[in-house]
């Protein structure tokens, strides 16, 4: 099995398991695609987490604000009418669990990997770009009709970048992931 196939299978299984265990939800979909690392406009909530070791890269989970609130409300059994600190924290932890499980699986093939603390971004019309020429393995899931997108890029360390950039119309800054 090729590495991309191993990653896609692992992301699919991990996402399904996290939703099933922590939210009691059978999340649908998980069809994998490979996308070039071109900047794309984002809107909503995106959480990034870095992987480091002999291979390095980034995992991300993104969804609409409405879905982020629904995830938080279901996972914490609380009201979440709008995106707030608790909602962002929940999406960050969801990312930590999904990509963390993928990391554990990949370590069987790639050796020890480190996992960073997640970073969450919430906004409109912002772009993200990995500093390398990276291909992302992208899996799109659906909770009812709301998409949740899980992405992962991974390269041998000497080719990998460890910094993500995000820009908006008014400002830019560097996200260390």
């Amino acid at each position, binding site marked *: 099995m090729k590495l991309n196939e191993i990653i896609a299978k692992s992301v699919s299984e991990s996402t399904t*398991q*996290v939703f099933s*265990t*922590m939210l009691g939800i059978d999340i649908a979909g998980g069809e994998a695609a490979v996308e070039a690392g071109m900047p794309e406009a984002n809107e909503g909530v995106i959480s990034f987490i870095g992987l480091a070791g002999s291979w390095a890269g980034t995992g991300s989970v993104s969804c609409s604000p409405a879905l982020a609130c629904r995830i*938080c409300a279901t*996972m*914490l*059994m*609380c009201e979440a009418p709008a995106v707030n*600190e*608790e909602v962002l*924290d*929940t999406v*960050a*932890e969801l990312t*930590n*669990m999904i990509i*963390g*499980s993928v*990391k*554990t699986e990949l*370590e069987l093939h790639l050796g*020890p990997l480190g*996992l*960073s*603390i997640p970073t969450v971004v919430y906004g409109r019309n912002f772009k993200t770009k990995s500093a390398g020429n990276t291909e992302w393995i992208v899996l799109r899931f659906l909770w009812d009709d709301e998409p949740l997108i899980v992405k992962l890029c991974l390269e041998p360390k000497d080719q990998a970048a460890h910094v993500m950039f995000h820009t908006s119309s008014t400002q830019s800054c560097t996200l260390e992931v």
Partner: protein
Amino acid sequence: MESNVLVVDDSAAIRKILQRVLRQTGMAIQTIHEAGDGQEALAVLGAQKVDLVLSDINMPKMDGLQLLASIKASAQWRQIPVVMITTEGGETKVSEAVKLGAAGYVRKPFTADQIKEKLAGILEPALPL
């Protein structure tokens, strides 16, 4: 006898979930303290009586393994059982935690039953009303 538990995780979401799960276990728990990293946890340990620590590994400032090492190096705290609850499921991290003296290891995502099972030999069940 009712126990005091310290939950250490940089995610407030996980701390909230563990609070709920611990209350549902049927164990005799008096107070659940919280800390967002290892340093905060040491401050709580210095100020409160704690009978069990549940700790994440990946945290800022001081991670869970450093916290575990600090607890086991202290004459005052070394008897406190520490259970790691973490996404770090690799053999290296598990064996490191065991070597440092962890009383148990639960991988995230976790179910309430997994937490209950892990704590069964550590905490006393609540007395029936």
